[in-house]
């Protein structure tokens, strides 16, 4: 009976060969990007692919620190975009990125959100009210949004007092989800995240941060698609890339 299967096998082999050959000259660029960038970058990727039909952009969205850990352990990422300079500094110190390609490409704002239609605190200090029984925050050990929030709460002298009520999230979008579902009464996310769930959460206040919420991007050292990776980075900072980011609520990088 094996003969009966031959045509099918041969067809499969030819398809596989065709796919492999079609890959010549085309590049698949893997972009590891902060969770807060997922909507904006997905659109950016599509726009980039429209300009470079031969290239494919593959995204890996997670908390910045986790992405860094993956790259450290040899994950095949070509471009790294983190939600804070601290994480990118660590990537640079570990010689994981091509420092010459690093540049800030957007800024964001940290906001305190509460469920839509609930009492909004006027200041951070109002969070001491027992009504805010659960406060969602990105885990400061691995999530930049959580680090910004921890800094702000420490500066306000509230970090220790609120400790027992904090619900650490794996990434900023999980913190958003906790508040949107009403499981947490308040949470710290970026302004761009809050805008995604306008009907379920409201922004109580913009949290002042000691350092600006700046997003850096860089090509990784280990990339095998350096040319396409650089082209993608260039696209992100181009006028078209910036307008996509702006449409998702990000601001231009501070000079």
């Amino acid at each position: 009976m094996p003969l009966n299967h031959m045509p099918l096998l041969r067809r499969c082999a030819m398809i596989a060969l065709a796919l492999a050959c079609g890959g010549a000259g085309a590049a698949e660029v893997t972009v590891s990007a902060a969770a807060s960038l997922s909507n904006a970058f997905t659109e950016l990727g599509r726009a980039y692919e429209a300009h470079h039909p031969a290239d494919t952009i593959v995204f890996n969205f997670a908390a910045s620190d986790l992405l860094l850990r993956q790259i450290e352990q040899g994950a095949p990422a070509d471009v790294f975009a983190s939600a804070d300079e601290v994480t990118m500094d660590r990537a640079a110190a570990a010689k994981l990125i091509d420092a010459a390609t690093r540049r800030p490409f957007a800024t964001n704002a940290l906001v305190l959100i509460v469920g839509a239609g609930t009492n909004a605190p006027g200041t951070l200090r109002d969070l001491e009210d027992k009504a805010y029984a659960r406060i969602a925050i990105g885990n400061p050990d691995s999530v930049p949004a959580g680090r910004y929030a921890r800094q702000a709460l420490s500066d306000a002298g509230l970090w220790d007092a609120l400790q027992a009520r904090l619900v650490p999230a794996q990434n900023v979008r999980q913190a958003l989800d906790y508040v949107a579902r009403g499981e947490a009464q308040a949470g710290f996310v970026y302004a761009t995240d809050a805008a995604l769930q306008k009907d379920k959460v409201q922004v109580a206040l913009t949290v002042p941060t000691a350092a600006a919420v700046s997003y850096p991007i860089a090509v990784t050292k280990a990339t095998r698609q350096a040319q396409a990776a650089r082209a993608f980075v260039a696209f992100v900072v181009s006028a078209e890339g910036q307008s996509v980011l702006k449409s998702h609520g990000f601001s231009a990088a501070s000079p």
Partner: protein
Amino acid sequence: MPADALTPLLLTLKVAALATLLATAGGVLCARLLGRTRSIARDLGESLLTLPLVLPPTVLGYYLLVLLGRNGVIGAWLLEHFGVTLIFTWQGAVIAAAIAAFPLILRAARAAFGDVDSSLEQAARTLGLRESAVFFRITLPLAWRGVVAGALLAFARAMGEFGATLMVAGSLPGRTQTLALAIYDAVAAGDDARAATLVWISIGVAVVALVAAAQLLRRGAPQ
């Protein structure tokens, strides 16, 4: 053992043990209800009850979050009548782990009940035992090894539960952060030393549990 590793260990043991108890009670009951005869309807029932094992844990977590959450059907009812919230609590983690482990017990118990010689059950009935007595005095004692083997698998599954637990109970250090979640957090935060410690503890607990169960089963084996 570092003190900050003891907390997730004890929590994991507590959650996994309670989840195994819940899953065993539910699994044995459902296996009994499904009976020993096979039919399309019963196979369909068993398949539906096995879904938690087949579906990704995140799907399970999502539905549990939707049902048990503040705005969920069950969650809202619990909150209104008892003031109980399950989200972000270790009790929520128990429920997530129990449901994830349940199909393992169900399958093992159903197979074990099927292997019991039905003439023994018939004999008990002719001697006037009620159905419940037949089950507890004849079927269950004859099938216990299969049920224990299933419970062991369930315990292992419950100990390793990650996806659904994370979504339902969160990862609150000291409160809902089990070993699996603590390891994930340690890796994400770049704390390799802590991750390694927790991994070794997990391996130790798993080996002890497996050896203990093997001993127990051997001692109960017919000579």
